[in-house]
């Protein structure tokens, strides 16, 4: 009985995921993925979304605990990045690019390292105690700490 229920629930979850997947395929432009901001499990600092925004605008270089931030980015145009830039940094990608062009060519900042997938970001965050990154909420595992989802 119990196992049946959990199986059903699991199936429902799977079904839902497929259904959502199908929806995403049909109407990708309407998709609005949940984004999770993640850090290493050993990072116990209290980090707000404001701190995250400042990090990706080069206004903060250290975690509240003093550790030097290694920020990770994803490819322009990827679902994760479009959502992250709009929800957390509160800019669109063109504004973000113009903003960073000022920092790069004035030597005031080096953009976060761009990784090419959620999996690569997860891997980097798992292996680097100072890393911070963002992935689609669905991709999150228990090997990273989630600061927040949006």
């Amino acid at each position, binding site marked *: 009985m119990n196992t049946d229920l959990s199986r059903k629930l699991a199936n429902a979850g799977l079904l839902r995921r497929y259904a959502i997947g199908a929806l995403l395929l049909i109407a990708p432009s309407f998709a609005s993925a949940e984004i999770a901001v993640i850090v290493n499990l050993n990072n116990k600092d209290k980090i707000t979304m404001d701190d995250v925004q400042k990090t990706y605008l080069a*206004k*903060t*270089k250290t975690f509240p605990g003093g550790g030097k931030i290694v920020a990770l980015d994803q490819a322009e145009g990827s679902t994760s990045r479009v959502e992250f830039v709009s929800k957390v940094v509160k800019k*669109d*990608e063109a504004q973000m690019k113009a903003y960073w*062009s*000022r920092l790069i*060519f*004035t*030597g005031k900042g080096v953009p976060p390292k761009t990784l090419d997938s959620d999996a690569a970001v997860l891997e980097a965050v798992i292996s680097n105690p100072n890393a911070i990154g963002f992935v689609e909420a669905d991709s999150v595992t228990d090997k990273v700490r989630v600061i927040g989802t949006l």
Partner: protein
Amino acid sequence: MNVKLATRFGLSALALAITPAHAVDLRFDGFATFVVGQMLDDDELNHDPQGNLMTFRGFDDQINFQSNNVFAIQARADLGEGLSATAQIMAKGVDDYDAKFSWAYLSYELTPEWTISAGQMRIPYFYYSESLDVGYSYPFIRPPFNTYDIGGFDNISGLKAEWQTDVGNWVSRVTMLAGRTDTTLKISQLPDPVKAQVSRMGLLAWSMNYDAFTVRGIYARANLSLGVSDYLDAIGFDRISNEVDSTLTGIGLPALGLNFSNDARHGAYYDNDAAEFYGIAFNYDPGPYFVTIESTVLDLQNGFMQNPGTGTYLNAGVRLGKITPYFTIERAESDYNEKGYRRLMAEVNHAGLQAQYGSLVGDLIYSGVGAGLKQVFVSSLKEENAYNIGVRYDFHPSAAFKLEYMTAKNHNYDLSPQAIAASVDVIF
């Protein structure tokens, strides 16, 4: 495929061969701007009193494709442990694409808050100074022309310390810079470029940012030398003296032999003379719209050029998706070095002239010399209101197209030039 593989292996082998002891993270960034523009006025409107065709913002009455073009590549080597080396090589259409190092410096991050740099770098006079050539980074085709005219002293060799820290919810950034620069300058009143030197420069800039709001203040001082004394003697003092004498002898009167002391002439020169610059800027950019106001003062304290010169502008725009309409209004004005002029006039003995030539001719000589001397000082006087209206279109993730109409009311020449320009700004 095979060729590609071979190249890849070849490159790997090369990379292995030159891999230094420590991993170096090398990063290349680049930008380019292509501008085309033309003045819209009738030819006769575009000439100064001497009959020279005046250009407006680098445009003339022909379609101009190249003088505003810029192409640059920046390389940054991260050497680890906070040490990095940055170089930017730029080619400008106005220099016939002669590629030059616009900056090259070493930076060392002492702490996450403190960074020191040494080498050749951009002087951060203005809000947009450091990204002055990166058209992609700002809304207009070029930053407000009169305010951003610092006469070519853009870069400096020296030391810079930057301190970025949080003050409550604000981010504070303090920049301290000291250095010197030797260069050649093209001064519009003079036929050939002259030697120029800025030494003992000290600069302090402080910007405070809270969310979408930024305020920035700056003060700089330096000693300025310009190789203009020969020109000023030839086209100013000696010419005035010669003209007075030839007029006098032409009507049968004895020559005056007017001569100014070196001390008085120095009032028009720049010979290690103090110059000061200060400015303030406000920027509010919450995303859907933005407003920037900046005001600056350049006080040369000595010499024949505008003194002091002030520039103030307001720029605002609205972001409608990929389309950003914007406008700018700018006011620039300058005074002239009255002290320098009076020092020279003090050496023209009005009563002596009346005694020697009679009061009528004496007065004429005195006022003629006065007018001639004044011309030396007021030739670069500026009083201009400028306006532009334009639209930026972010048509590609790495490129923007801009179309801009610009005009100005120049009160010195009573001119109202107009131009229309388009640009494509790219970063890569």
